């Protein structure tokens, strides 16, 4: 029926018409080309982002699958579920049976137990740190060191005095200030600090209890952490890397601090403000003047002089004052008092603007930063974590900081940097589960004081029932006899810094990451695991990395929707224009259509002709669009797309995204665009086919 000649004929006539109405053709072709361009570039980048996000998420903490209890009240959200706080994801009371079942699956390569929680970081205050240093110096007996520390203490006192006099100006009730000043005066009085050369507990206690509180407690920091088996973790999460210090040694209690957390929360404010301004003015290219965020940070920076002052001793202060003077900053009116003078100089130094910022930034890191303790926590130190356990009491635990880590590719990302890493045993303890060592300790204490463990459910019967062999009165008397109250218990409550390695191969975890050998079978393996675990009576949820990552995993889906919506809108506009132009075009071509119909062309021929016109326009336009898209992607594949901010950096899984060329998409997208455009012009084409053959006879007037 439809011969090759006929197709040729239709094409020839179609091309002629397209040329005749070329403006219209160009408009429609451009629109469809743009749609196709957007589809190729957009979907291509989206797939890249999804791919890299997948890599980031799987390779950092999620693994391919996550297993957690079905009794969970909240969904597992490894990168945050959109709100802060501790999610209740239930617990796996003993990982052994889960691991055994999961590892039986032929596609599973690893089972990594985990648990996420947060604790309060005990911080003390500025003065406490100095007092600790003083104590250490006194203990060492190094007279030079003691002298320097005492000097430092005196310097701190000077500042406290300064602060008190500032406060006097502001506060109505002066009695508190009078009291404080009296304490400071006592410490500064001859025969107190200046004679402190050997360990004098009464003096130290006075400083610790009366003076230190005056410098105020620092606001608490919540540290989120992931408790895990570090050996398994390191092996299975290739994005994990230690950037400072060392990794957690197996079998040791300890914590690894996230680089991002350290930069954001544990860095001294003055340096943090310099960093923020540097990032936003340098890489971000935003001037300080006129930008609200920069102006706020610059304003805050101007008030940070005291942090610098309190970090330096008198000698350092003198040197710094001289250096600032050499820089041309002499603090306005001259003051004989070193601290007042340095304060004025620093105020001047810290008032930055667009002209001086770059220079001040460098100067700060060269001359001031080395004098300060830049980070509150550094590898080698021990920190105290305080957690509210699940049972409600407060558990405090000292943990050695072994190192600083980050996840490769998204070092600076807000989304990935919130979690620190601790060993699973310490995690359990902070979570409220006793370690074997603690349990042993408790048993020993019980046996010594003669406490009998009684289960709450039958407590009454056990203690007071017929069968009870305990005579409460007698027992307590015996206890008194055996261990006099005046003597301390012989078991020292101690927390060993290590644990036996098999302690982490069993026992509690909150969730577990599962790594697969063949990631393409993720969904079938997920179902298999769910099935196996359910069959054995374990009530768990098995979810994939996308779901486990919480809101971040949904991000790609949202972007996809937005993109498809945009393409859809362009399409809709193009289709309306196409249909309109065919209908209007029909008016110009009534006689031509009528003639064809009169000399024997069926309606279907006319429909075919119009569809051919749209099809040709669509194909040429969208192929051109896809071609341009390919060129763009080729260019981007060599230079890379820089991530403009941290969130995007996380999505890109690195500072730059190098898009891949997807030929299926490059060829498929224009074909689909053409097909949809052609199909959707059927209505208008049928409208054109309704032109009466008699119209051929109508003469233009």
């Amino acid at each position, binding site marked *: *029926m439809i*011969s090759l*000649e*006929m197709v040729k*004929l239709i094409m*020839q*006539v179609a*091309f*002629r018409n397209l040329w005749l109405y070329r403006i219209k053709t160009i408009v429609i072709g451009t629109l469809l080309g743009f749609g196709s361009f957007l589809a190729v570039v957009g979907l291509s980048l989206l797939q890249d982002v999804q791919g890299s996000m997948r890599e980031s998420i799987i390779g950092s903490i999620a693994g391919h699958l996550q297993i957690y209890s079905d009794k969970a009240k909240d969904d597992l959200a490894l990168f945050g579920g959109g709100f802060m706080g501790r999610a209740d994801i239930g617990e796996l009371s003993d990982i052994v049976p889960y691991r055994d079942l999961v590892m039986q699956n032929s596609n599973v390569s690893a089972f990594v137990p985990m648990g996420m929680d947060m604790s309060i970081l005990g911080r003390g205050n500025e003065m406490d740190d100095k007092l600790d240093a003083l104590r250490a110096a006194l203990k060492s007996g190094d007279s030079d060191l003691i002298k320097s520390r005492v000097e430092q203490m005196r310097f701190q006192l000077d500042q406290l005095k300064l602060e008190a006099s500032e406060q006097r100006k502001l506060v109505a009730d002066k009695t508190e200030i009078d009291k404080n000043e009296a304490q400071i005066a006592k410490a500064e009085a001859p025969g107190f600090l200046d004679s402190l050369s050997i360990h004098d507990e009464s003096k130290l206690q006075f400083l610790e209890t009366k003076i230190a509180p005056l410098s105020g407690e620092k606001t608490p920091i919540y540290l989120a952490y992931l408790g895990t088996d570090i050996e398994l973790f390191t092996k299975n999460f290739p994005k994990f890397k230690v950037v400072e210090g060392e990794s957690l040694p197996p079998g040791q209690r300890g914590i690894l601090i996230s680089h991002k957390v350290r930069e954001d929360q544990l860095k001294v404010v003055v340096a943090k403000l310099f960093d923020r301004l540097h990032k936003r003015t340098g890489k971000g290219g935003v001037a300080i003047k006129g930008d609200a965020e920069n102006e706020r940070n610059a304003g805050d920076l101007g008030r940070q002089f005291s942090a610098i002052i309190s970090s330096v001793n008198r000698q350092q202060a003198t040197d710094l004052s001289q250096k600032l003077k050499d820089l041309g900053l002499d603090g306005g009116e001259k003051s004989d008092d070193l601290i007042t003078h340095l304060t004025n100089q620093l105020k001047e130094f810290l008032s930055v603007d667009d002209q001086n910022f770059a220079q001040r930034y460098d100067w700060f890191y060269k001359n001031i930063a080395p004098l300060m303790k830049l980070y509150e926590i550094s590898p080698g130190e021990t920190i105290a974590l305080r957690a509210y356990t699940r049972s409600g009491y407060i558990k405090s635990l000292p943990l050695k900081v072994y190192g600083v880590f980050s996840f490769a590719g998204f070092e600076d990302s807000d989304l990935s940097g919130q979690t620190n890493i601790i060993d699973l045993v310490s995690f359990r303890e902070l979570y409220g589960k006793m370690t074997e060592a603690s349990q042993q300790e408790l048993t020993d204490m019980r046996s010594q004081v003669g406490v009998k463990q009684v289960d709450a459910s039958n407590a009454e019967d056990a203690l007071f029932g017929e069968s009870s062999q305990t005579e409460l009165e007698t027992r307590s008397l015996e206890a008194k006899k055996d261990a006099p109250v005046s003597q301390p218990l012989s078991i020292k409550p101690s927390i060993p810094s290590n644990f036996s390695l098999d302690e982490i191969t069993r026992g509690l975890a909150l969730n577990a990451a599962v790594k697969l050998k063949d990631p393409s079978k993720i969904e079938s393996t997920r179902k298999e695991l769910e099935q196996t675990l359910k069959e054995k009576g374990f009530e768990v949820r098995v979810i994939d990395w996308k779901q486990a990552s919480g809101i971040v995993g949904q991000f790609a889906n949202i972007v996809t929707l937005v993109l498809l919506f945009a393409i859809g809108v362009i399409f809709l506009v193009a289709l309306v224009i196409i249909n309109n132009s065919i209908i209007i075009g029909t008016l110009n071509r009534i*006689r*031509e259509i009528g*003639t064809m*119909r*009169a*000399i*024997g*062309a*069926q*309606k279907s*021929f006319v429909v075919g002709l119009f569809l051919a016109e749209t099809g040709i326009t669509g194909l040429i336009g969208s192929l051109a669009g896809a071609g341009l898209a390919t060129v763009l992607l080729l260019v981007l594949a060599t230079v890379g797309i820089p991530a403009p901010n941290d969130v995007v950096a996380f999505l890109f899984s690195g500072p730059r995204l190098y898009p891949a060329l997807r030929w299926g998409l490059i060829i498929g997208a224009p074909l689909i665009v053409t097909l949809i455009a052609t199909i959707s012009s059927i209505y208008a084409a049928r409208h054109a086919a309704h032109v*009466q*053959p*008699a119209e*051929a*006879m109508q*003469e*233009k007037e």
Partner: protein
Amino acid sequence: MTHAIRIEAVSKVYPLGNTEVKALKNINLVIEEGEFTTIAGPSGCGKSTMLNLIGCMDTPSTGEVYIDERPISKLSDKDLTRLRLEKLGFIFQSFNLIPVLTVYQNIEFPLLIHGGFSAAERTKIIDRLIAEVGLKDQARQKSNELSGGQRQRVAIARALVTSPRIVLADEPTANLDSNTGEKIINLMKEINITHKTTFIFSTHDPQVMKHAGRIIRLKDGEVVES
């Protein structure tokens, strides 16, 4: 002998706003095969309506039109189209060629729509017709490069290419000078004689009219002379 066209008690009524216009009133007419007939009359007399009905581009309100003894009023659009393609040829006042196509391709057009002709068959038919209308040298030219007379020759060839029994021509000389018009009418006449094709054309040019073997005059939708 069958009648080429038989019109029986045909009326055609068009709605015009709330009223109706009776374009044709109870027409009875027979046109025999091989006739060279003109339909004449002033504007608005029903000439066009008559040609539309004969050309199967419209159906009567009442009565029946028979083409080759086949009634058309009950035919579907598809069948009417097929009937036009096979039995009828059309020549238009403004030639109505497809500008992008060459002379040859314009003439080939109905054959392609018709289907069933091999390339060799088509060439044979078209070459003969091109020679017949005297356009051998212009065969590969685009139709919009031709003069009016030449275009109308192409149109005549196109009308004849499917060997129709009847050719309808709507004012075929109206857009041509009288000399050229004369030649076109003579060509049509020649074909009428050699091919025995029935020719029906409308005109209001007395010079053209005199070539006709029969004149059907219409006035106010009625046949006043036939």
